[in-house]
């Protein structure tokens, strides 16, 4: 079986963004989420203060001839903010317009080494990128003049830059009388009544969460023991409600459909700001870095490299962390964040110490089995 399967967060965000039949469930959840997080959340956070690209950003760029760069991403609020804060200015500076394409894992896989790819790059998980390389479908290497990101695993720094860290956290509704502390509490439906919201479109730390709840130490999760994890998951299956997109997961908490949720850190930060719930970075499943892999024969190779160079600048990384709570993959970016801003990031020193850090290489190898086992379990 092909080892490069998928990619939970990406799919969830795709679902949120819309586009294609698979995106259907999330489209509506997105509507729901805009209700739940009006006033809080990504856009409002980003609207404070202007952000100007640092003047040294294009210091190493060659002359660019492309007039556009096509990036497959998740649309929605996240990309709206990215455009507002970074892409629009990038376009002015480079003369290349950033064109959004709806995210599609299979489509990118077919495109990465095709002669005439439709996209230049895609917003991808670290382990998906590693899986691409492991399966002999390596994306194009970044140009020499593109900034490298020091928090990306050394071996992949030539392929992965400009991206971010995120984690799947334990969140709960403010209606709970006592705050849960860890995933063992998430599985304890006697002590903490109510449904638990879990993703069903694709896994998001699912097995890691179950193993930690079953007593495996957060530092000894890999390689993942699927049998043990799914046995544990069967125990609470009756108490789960499944969501198709992170937005729907948020909506469950707001509506009181679930008292606890396993969801992306940024979503819980939004809910916390709105006073709807709280979360912990304790035992969070941290995906430490991602990538924007470039198709081998990208039509706008110069511009896409310049875009990734821009996104890898510490100032831009810090701005994305500030406005979207997507953790920096450049250590210098942390120096630009205030203590409060740092405390929100999934991969600040303090939060990283609490988290179960995903072993990107092993996760890439196990992804195929993970996806298969996950869908067998959901469908059962």
């Amino acid at each position, binding site marked *: 079986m092909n080892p490069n399967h998928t990619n939970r967060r990406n799919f969830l965000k795709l679902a949120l963004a819309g586009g294609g*039949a698979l995106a259907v469930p999330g489209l*509506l959840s997105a509507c729901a989420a805009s209700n739940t997080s009006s006033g809080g959340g990504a856009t409002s956070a980003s609207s404070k203060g202007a952000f100007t690209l640092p003047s040294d950003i294009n210091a190493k760029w060659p002359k660019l001839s492309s007039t556009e760069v096509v990036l497959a991403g998740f649309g929605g609020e996240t990309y709206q903010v990215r455009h507002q804060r970074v892409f629009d200015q990038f376009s002015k500076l480079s003369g290349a317009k950033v064109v959004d394409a709806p995210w599609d*894992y*299979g489509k990118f896989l077919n495109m990465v080494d095709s002669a005439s790819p439709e996209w230049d790059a895609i917003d991808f998980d670290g382990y998906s990128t590693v899986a691409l390389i492991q399966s002999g479908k390596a994306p194009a290497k970044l140009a020499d003049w593109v900034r490298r990101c020091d928090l990306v695993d050394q071996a992949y720094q030539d392929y992965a830059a400009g991206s971010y860290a995120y984690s799947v956290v334990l969140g709960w509704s403010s209606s709970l009388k006592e705050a849960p502390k860890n995933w063992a509490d998430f599985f304890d439906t006697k002590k903490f009544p109510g449904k638990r919201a879990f993703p069903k479109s694709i896994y998001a730390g699912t097995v890691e969460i179950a193993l930690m709840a079953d007593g495996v130490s957060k530092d000894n999760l890999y390689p993942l023991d699927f049998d043990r994890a799914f046995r544990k998951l069967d125990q609470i299956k009756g108490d789960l409600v*499944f969501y198709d997109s992170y937005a729907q997961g948020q909506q*469950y908490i707001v509506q009181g*459909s679930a008292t606890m949720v396993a969801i992306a850190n940024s979503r819980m930060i939004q809910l916390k700001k709105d006073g709807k719930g709280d979360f912990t970075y304790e035992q969070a499943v941290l995906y430490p870095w991602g990538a924007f892999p470039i198709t081998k024969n990208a039509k706008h190779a110069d511009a896409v490299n310049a875009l990734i160079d821009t996104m890898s600048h510490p100032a831009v990384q810090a701005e994305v962390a500030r406005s979207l709570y997507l953790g920096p993959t450049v250590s210098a970016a942390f120096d630009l964040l205030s203590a409060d801003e740092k405390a929100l990031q999934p991969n600040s020193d303090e939060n990283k110490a609490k988290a179960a850090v995903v072993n990107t290489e092993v996760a890439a190898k196990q992804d195929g089995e993970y996806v298969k086992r996950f869908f067998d379990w959901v*469908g*059962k």
Partner: protein
Amino acid sequence: MLPPALLLVLGMLGPVAVTIGVALRENGPVGAVTQPMRDPMVVHSIGKTLLLAVTVTIATWICGLLFTLAVGLAPRVVGQILFGILFLTFWISLLVRTYGWVLTLQPNGALDTLGRSLGLTDAAGFGLFQTLPGLLPPMVHIMLPYMVLPIYASLQALDPAQVRAARSLGGSEFLVLRRLVLPSLRSGSWAGVLLVFILSLGFYVTPAFLGGPGTQVLAMVIGVQFGRLENIGLTAALGALLLIAVLVLYAIADRIFKISEQWERV
């Protein structure tokens, strides 16, 4: 005339041919049928899909028949309003309707809140969300117009004079209904049943939204296997299987119930 026909052939039959071609290439002619059946998850999902399609079809037929009779028997204005309401839902996106059901059925959602205020349920709620029973009302709701339309066409074909004649000759209301009205609705019913059954077999959006574990229908399996698992062989085989099942079903039904004639009336 030729260009549209050509477009239809290329745009519609082309992908179907490719799907069947891939199914045969990846699995071989025997494997295309046997390979998917080796995966217990697929077999399980086929069972669920059939169960769901049969249940939905029966429930929709009962509701559709009652609805159509109500439309036909009610005063003209009321009938028109009923009909209007039904088809108004056609104009609302399927997604919106489905999501409306999500908000209704989800734990602590509209239904649970209503049930609690009426004292019908406790804090735990009805627990219908992401279960098979919870999937039925939304699917029947979405399928209803497809059932009502052909039955209504049959009803229209029934001459009111015939009903008056039956009544004046002493037939009781029940007898007229049983011996005259219902038999004349038979062909419309079969057309509706077939249409709803076929649509239910390939239903994706509503089960994807409202389904939970154990309601993984075939269309969802295809979606997952294709979009995330890159399992082209299995996907093509399942797609071809579903298509052929529907075509065979239609051919048989058409032979027996002359459904294609029914369409001309609609």
